[in-house]
């Protein structure tokens, strides 16, 4: 990342941590959504 851009968004360490934490956040939401979709589909199919 160019030095000028890094300065604009804050320290590099913070940016990396933020990106990975967003992945954990997204992963959690995806797990929840998959669980909900799974159950609703099973119920809708009358399984």
């Amino acid at each position, binding site marked *: 990342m160019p030095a000028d851009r890094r300065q604009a968004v*804050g320290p590099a360490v913070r940016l990396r*941590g933020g990106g*990975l*934490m967003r992945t*954990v956040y997204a*992963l*959690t*939401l995806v*797990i*929840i959504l998959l*669980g*909900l979709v*799974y*159950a*609703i589909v*099973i*119920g*809708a199919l*009358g*399984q």
Partner: protein
Amino acid sequence: VRAFFRDNSMTLAFLALFVVTLVGQAFVGHADFNHQQLAHQDHTISFWRYVTSSAFAVDVMENWQSEYLQFTLFVIGAVWLVQRGSPESKKVEDIGFESDEQQKLGEHTEPDSPKWAKAGGWRTHVYSNSLLLVMGGIWLASWFAQLITGRIEYNAQQFDHHEAALSLWEYAGSSDFWNRTLQNWQSEFLAVASIAILAVYLRQRGSAQSKPVGEPHTTTAAEG
């Protein structure tokens, strides 16, 4: 990598526990289901058939919905409800939505404030309630999932006993649906009441859910 796991250990540890216990539930649920089948002189089913059945899904969803209801009510209730002396509560004088200054909104936003907090208008309004909206949305979706899977499971029992099947609407008013629902709600509400008041007088050294050990009982909104 080590820093990543340390920095996210609360989420990752509980997600891992979730996966392990869900798999455990699937195995013992399958064994229990087949025991019941044999007791009724019915045929047993495969593990895959069980985990794709409403019998399993309703057991998962009835617990999900109550947990998300608990946190949804905790999130919104904690705007107006307080427990003096509890680290789970805000201060009595802060009851309500609080000022823009306290909430770092409007002219009080900071350079690092979230984009939608700085945006103003409907985006800031939505973002100001986003935790409630998402937790409440998951609660409603999982409660609906409990309703439709619970009905399939209930009707399977009815079929076994040569009794009439219920429509979704009929099942929503049935004792089976409300028994599954309320047996989970009551425990969640007791747990919230317990943590709110027990944390006034009891401590866990080092826990974010506790006040510092030496903090007076009267201090509200202090975390250790």
